[in-house]
């Protein structure tokens, strides 16, 4: 007996439907069947009106991302499961069924032009260090499939106008290129670099397994810290200073160091509630007894790679 895949698909045509609905299909299962194969079978054999994108079929165009059982993935990469619900990506206007209008987000990502801005004229030959090339490979794997955007908690609350992981991936690619002349630190600060919640959700769904938290967020934050600018740079410095002073960290110490006495005083009502519940840690408290050990191993001389 041929095994079957049961697939429930989001259907909606904004021009004719009042509401979206879900339609269920049964598709004969084949070995190593991709989600894209399932959709193609439906389109060719069961329902030619189903709309979906499947372009390069080799994980490079980034256009075919949908939600597969609630998780974003490329239909040319993800294996079909016996029971599936397929839905369009969130946050975007629906053109029809699984097809969304990606232009609004792509325009924002491409506001960082995909070119190294060099001094002109470029002097040839143009030496590029091996480690720069290795570093550049990471962000250039991004195909703007928007899977990370669909799961990002910062994008969810800030809207894509303010926080877009693929935009930061683009910026990170240029920030490590010695030839580039744009102020990428400023650019990443303006792209709300420090609103990343460090949750790693983006990495879990990235089809090219880009280590976004380390190679993009931490790398860019490091440049911001080294330039000592912006709220993010001040925050990291305050954390480091608190750790060097006490050997451990506490919110009041970081708040005082990064935002100053005035802002810290504005938090006093919250502080009083915390004191009442024995949850307040004074920024002026004693360091840990082995503080000198901590200072020794995190001092500036220990920073060499």
């Amino acid at each position: 007996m041929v095994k079957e895949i049961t697939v429930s698909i989001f259907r909606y045509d904004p021009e004719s439907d009042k509401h979206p609905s879900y339609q269920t299909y049964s598709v004969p299962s084949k070995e190593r069947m991709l989600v894209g194969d399932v959709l193609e079978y439906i389109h060719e054999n069961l329902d030619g009106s189903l709309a979906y994108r499947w372009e390069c079929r080799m994980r490079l165009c980034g256009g075919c991302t949908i939600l597969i059982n609630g998780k974003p993935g490329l239909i040319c990469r993800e294996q079909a499961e016996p029971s599936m619900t397929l839905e369009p990506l969130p946050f975007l206007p629906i053109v029809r069924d699984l097809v969304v209008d990606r232009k609004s987000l792509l325009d924002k990502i491409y506001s960082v032009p995909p070119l190294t801005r060099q001094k002109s004229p470029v002097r040839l030959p143009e030496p590029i260090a091996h480690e720069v090339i290795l570093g550049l490979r990471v962000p250039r794997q991004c195909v703007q499939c928007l899977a990370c955007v669909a799961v990002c908690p910062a994008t969810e609350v800030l809207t894509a106008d303010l926080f877009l992981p693929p935009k930061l991936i683009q910026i990170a690619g240029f920030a490590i290129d010695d030839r580039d002349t744009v102020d990428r630190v400023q650019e990443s600060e303006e792209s709300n670099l420090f609103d990343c919640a460090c949750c790693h959700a983006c990495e879990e769904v990235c089809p090219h397994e880009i280590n976004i938290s380390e190679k993009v967020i931490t790398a860019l934050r490091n440049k911001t810290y080294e330039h000592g600018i912006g709220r993010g740079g001040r925050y990291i410095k305050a954390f480091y200073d608190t750790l060097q002073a006490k050997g451990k960290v506490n919110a009041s110490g970081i708040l005082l160091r990064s935002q100053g006495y005035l802002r810290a005083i504005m938090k006093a009502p919250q502080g009083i509630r915390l004191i009442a519940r024995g949850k307040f840690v004074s920024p002026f408290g004693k360091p840990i007894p082995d503080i000198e050990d901590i200072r020794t191993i995190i001092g500036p001389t220990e920073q060499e790679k």
Partner: protein
Amino acid sequence: MKYAYYPGCAAKGSTPEADFTTRLVAQTLGIELLELQNSGCCGAKEIRVVSRRLDLNLNARILSLAQGLGLDILTICNTCLLNLNQANNQLKAEPETLQKVNKSLSKIGLSYDGSTNVKHLLHVLLTDLGLDRLKQSVKTPLTGLKVAPFYGCHIVRPVKDLGFDVAKTESLEALVRTLHAHPVEYPGRTKCCGFYVLMPNEAAASGMIAHRLEEALKADADCIVTPCPLCHVALDMFQEQALGKVGIRRTIPVLHLPQLVGLALGISEKNLQFSRHLVRVNILGK
């Protein structure tokens, strides 16, 4: 069962009840905890921004202190768990890096050989103690209590660094069932609480906190349980203002994992220190 206990900064500062109840629960279950005194901070997500090497030094120091005791580490903080595991994996995989880090550690009379394992309290309860033994210790079954399991990010992702997929295996749900409570299904269980955005952008963090709380409230949960003190800070300490901003007047208590376990073990409400929470814990008798 004996562990080198590393509670982390949050449990020694903003959420002392997490540290206190972990000790009580461990004592009740026969788990011996030897605290790593003066172990300091793991560097969280911030020190690696200054320099990856400093982050490795801090974590290698903690791993080395446990190695000196010949014990595996038990932590109750998700970020400490991830940081220690990431550092441990890197130090084991890169002998050159380990050599450099040991050069730093030698200045304070320590060295690390890569032999320490790092576990979270949740792992210890699930695998080392085992849910069967935990079940036998339940004195006050939490029958009828609807619990929203909130994992927090750094015990779930990246799986390759943690080596154990707690979310896919529904471990927190299994633990809740062991205590005779009912784990509710809701979309936020492995999403982010926004803790790491609180300091740089409180408004954005507040939005994330509100989303997570709303998801649990919609699922009609009586309380949230989390294995991470940082999630507790976000979801309890900032709950009132986060929900207030989105016009929700209901609240939902947030319990630390050891508090929920302690409740089922028959530890008194006073000893579970619910009075330290900012959101009133009104689940008793449910």
